[in-house]
């Protein structure tokens, strides 16, 4: 198991938002988290790279292991963790820099100075994110000039550049049009050959299309977690069936 979560609780101040999450994410597969708004999917995915650390008064309890190491153990190097566990956000967030500098950002802060190596990794990452052909002639133009879908693929390229093992995606296509969404989904399909992917999505067809396993979240609990086919065709829990068939949520 790439990620092992056991009895994980999460609090914002006194409010408990995650209750005893148990979830094992297998390596090089796509695991989708579905569920109605406010059910804790985003909070959970942001716990895996400790992005919630920046929120004051927020704290997690319990166990999350990446490759068998508890990431909440004292003395954990959060910077190193985040380089292994990349993240793509709901709203594309390119930096106000050139396309090239966006992709090179993580490499540069990691200490890579060699221009050749930088250029090679940037090209490789843009290729993997299926963006290279669209931007290769304007690498030094501002990233903000790209379309929404291109910006999101740029953010994926940026995350891939530092060569993570896990990619967390928090509703990566929810702000995109159908064509851009299709591109992102195809991309996820290709990326799982090399990366372990956890994706939060509101779109159940998307979960069905891209994921190998699906977890259904409800009110801060994992209601059901199984192979995606099982969740959609043959769920064990009535609530899951009601949700995936659109009877509520």
């Amino acid at each position: 198991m790439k990620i092992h979560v056991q009895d994980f609780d999460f609090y914002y101040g006194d409010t408990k938002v995650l209750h005893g999450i148990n979830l094992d994410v297998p390596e090089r597969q796509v695991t989708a988290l579905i569920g109605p708004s406010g059910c804790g999917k985003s909070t959970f995915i942001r716990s895996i790279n400790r992005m919630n650390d920046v929120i004051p008064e927020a704290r997690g309890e319990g166990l999350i292991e990446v490759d068998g190491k508890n990431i909440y153990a004292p003395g954990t190097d959060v910077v190193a963790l985040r380089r292994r566990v990349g993240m793509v956000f709901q709203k594309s967030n390119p930096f106000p820099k050139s396309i090239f500098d966006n992709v090179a950002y993580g490499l540069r802060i990691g200490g890579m100075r060699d221009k050749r190596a930088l250029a090679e990794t940037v090209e490789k990452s843009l290729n993997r994110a299926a963006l290279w052909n669209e931007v290769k002639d304007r690498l030094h133009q501002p990233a903000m000039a790209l379309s929404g879908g291109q910006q999101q693929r740029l953010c994926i390229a940026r995350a891939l550049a530092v060569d993570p093992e896990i990619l967390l995606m928090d509703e990566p296509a929810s702000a995109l049009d159908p064509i851009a969404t299709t591109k992102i989904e195809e991309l996820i399909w290709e990326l799982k050959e090399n990366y372990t992917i956890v994706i939060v999505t509101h779109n159940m067809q998307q979960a069905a299309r891209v994921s190998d396993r699906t977890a259904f979240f409800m009110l801060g609990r994992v209601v059901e977690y199984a192979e995606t086919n099982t969740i959609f065709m043959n769920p064990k829990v009535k609530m899951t069936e009601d949700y995936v068939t659109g009877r509520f949520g």
Partner: protein
Amino acid sequence: MKRKIVSRLAEVFCAVCVLLALVPLALILFYVIKEGLTSLNLAFFTHLPKPVGETGGGMANAIVGTLILIGLAALFAVPVGCIAGMHLSEYPSTRFSSTVRFAADVLNGVPSIVIGLFAYGLLVLPVKRFNAVAGGFALGLLMLPIVVRTTEELLRLVPAGMREGALALGATRSRAVFSVILPAALPGILTGILVALARVAGETAPLLFTALNNQYFSTNIFQPIASLTVQVFTYANSPYDDWHRQAWAGAFLLVMIILTLSIVARLAVRRLERMNRA
């Protein structure tokens, strides 16, 4: 019908108010340009003031002096103000931050003459000599609250997503601030600095007890130094026609410097924003 009349009246009322607000500005500009331009010549930029009775002469020393003074002010206020602003935006709700914010707002309201007296006590009395450093420091103190507050406001306007993006790539907090958040806010901060500079370039009172004035050409920052504002003040108060004309020319130049700073600020912002947003 009645509604249309009321609407029309309101429009006229608004237009009159706008005119009332603009008329003084237009008159000032018109007068300064009319009187200033005719008194302006090459000698004004290149010559030193002449003694009373002799015609001609210029304010070369005061032009250089003003530039040195606002340079010193920026040297003091920009680093301190930017770093303080950064602290306020990074730790917005600590007690220390609220105190600093309040102090900056109070400092912003302190009359400039009081700031001048403070700089006098701090930097003139101990060395028993008026000097440019004291003048620059006084102007810097006037700039400081503006720089602090604009830096804070603009840093907080940067979308939280950018910070998260940097952190998610393994940036430390300070790295994220310096390499992503600060550059994103830079165009605005730069304008804030230029606007603050333009404001203090026109100050006279804080210089009276600090930089004083100097009839000679001096770039020594430990000596009294001339400035356009004090020179205009002195000349305008004199009984000599010749000096009055020089004062007009000085006033014209001051207005032009301030105008240029504002225009440069705008252009810089437009350029940088094109880089940012395209």
